[in-house]
């Protein structure tokens, strides 16, 4: 069976600094992949290359067999324009460390914005779906609140609902709990856990090792721009093969 997401020899340079060195990765539909590693290891950059927020220096990302951000025409390979890319991005929801809710819109308006503007759904239908999503993330009573009136954990749950409203086939999470107060981390992880149980395909960059151990089907450990070790989380966490993995786990567990 074709994997949902396939990363082939992906490299990314920032100037002379090579952040990603020929990464290969596959994600099967319905799988939860957690990427862990020390800061500066390239894990966020890898995630941002998947939906072309960062343009890779070389290599390719395939979503459902189609290259992301690139298009063949005859023998020639062309870069996609921003607007062509936006069609592919609809399939990849993304949740950021800093939430990035639209501050001039209420929670509900944040969620219905893209379905109405991009998918041209009617307001009534979009609103109905948005209420269902808010209910799902436990914020049914916060529909008319502005982001600044919500706690960090609530903002992040609205951000998850906003991404889900576009009915993506894949969800990307970039350190979704790193900016939260410790007591608010649990509520966001609970929503993510529920999503995983419903069969959503997820790629999660995280420092939450317990989440990775309990929820992930696949754990990837990155350091220095390469995948050092990958496998089932129980194997990687209890029986790491590489010294770099062992020293990282010794520090975070």
């Amino acid at each position, binding site marked *: 069976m074709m994997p949902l997401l396939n990363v082939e020899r992906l490299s990314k340079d920032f100037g002379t600094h090579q952040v990603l060195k020929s990464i290969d990765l596959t994600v099967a539909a319905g799988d939860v992949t957690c990427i862990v590693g020390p800061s500066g290891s390239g894990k966020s950059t890898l995630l941002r290359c998947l*939906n072309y*927020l960062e343009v890779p220096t070389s290599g390719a990302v395939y979503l459902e067999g189609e290259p992301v951000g690139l298009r063949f025409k005859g023998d020639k390979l062309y870069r996609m324009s*921003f*607007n062509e890319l*936006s*069609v592919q*991005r*609809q399939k*990849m*929801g*993304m949740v*950021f460390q*800093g939430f*990035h*809710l*639209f*501050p*001039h819109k209420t929670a509900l308006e944040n969620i219905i*914005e*893209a379905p109405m*503007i*991009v998918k041209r759904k009617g307001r009534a239908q979009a609103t109905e779906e948005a209420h269902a999503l808010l209910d799902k993330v436990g914020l049914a009573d916060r529909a008319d609140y*502005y982001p600044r009136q919500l706690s960090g954990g609530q903002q992040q749950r609205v*951000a998850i609902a*906003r*991404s889900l409203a*576009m009915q993506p086939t894949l969800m*990307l999470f970039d350190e979704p709990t790193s900016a939260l107060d410790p007591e608010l981390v649990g509520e966001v992880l609970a929503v993510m856990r529920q999503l995983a149980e419903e069969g959503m395909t997820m790629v999660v960059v995280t420092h939450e090792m317990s989440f990775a151990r309990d929820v992930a089907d696949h754990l990837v450990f990155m350091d220095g721009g390469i995948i050092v070790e990958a496998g089932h989380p129980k194997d990687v966490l209890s029986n790491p093969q590489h010294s770099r993995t062992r020293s990282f786990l010794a520090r975070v567990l």
Partner: protein
Amino acid sequence: MADIPIKSPARQPDIHSIKPVDVFHPSWWIGGALVLGLAVLFIRLLVTNENLQWSVVWQYLFSPEILAGLGRTLMLTFLSMILGLIIGTVIAVMRLSRNPVFQATSWAWIWFFRGVPPLVQLVFWYNLGLLIPEVSIAIPFGPTLWSASTNSLITPLSAALLGLAFTESAYAAEMIRAGIQAINLGQTEAAATLGMTQAQTLRRIVLPQALRIIVPPIGNDTISMLKFTSLVSVLALPDLLYSAQMIYSRTYQTIPLLIVATIWYLVLSTILTLAEHYIEHRLKDGPPLELQLILKSLFKSKFWGLRRGEAML
């Protein structure tokens, strides 16, 4: 408990039942009295000095000539602002473009029109005919489709509009650029991951947020523009100031007519300031609007402070 001696004897009142007297500041009272005295002297000057000729002021305040000048001042203010904002938006977008030619051109435009005083520009534009005697539209190396002498195109009004609008465009461009750049990159990224196109992101996400930042300084600039229009009197364009000047050159009632102009400038700038505050309160989604709140905030506003181009003397 009984061992601890209680310091306050019974004849002092209970500390919880009376209010303490505030600290006395003698300097407030002395300074206040001094300034109040000066204010009284100034008002006395306004009332008793016969050179002011208040009856002449009232006579001319609503005269058709002055009102026509007032109309031209308002028209110049708004036309220059609209033209300046349109050009400024184009310059701002060029400044944010990745095209180096656009970047350099917009930089040079802003550098030039912020650097040259509007008065110099007005005179320069008015005398453009000396530099370029004839303007024509033609197919390059082909026939001329249309041509006219520059002197027939450059009237006092068009010279004034060019000078004021170009100056405004340079300032507006910088405000618009700053407003757009103040929006967190995360907003654009979040919109992109939701599948929004660049145009949708600009229209729905970036501009509504940028407007909140841009509108207050633009309101401020409109008030500045109102006062800058008085410069056009050097082109003999009968605006508010020049209308007053024309009257006193006939009647020699210089001071009363300058006061007429002053009163109208104050009335207009006060109305514009109130409008600006109204819009600012609307943009902040704070408490509902109350006239009292706006009037209160007037006293904290930049209206009383220095505006651009006004040197501290």
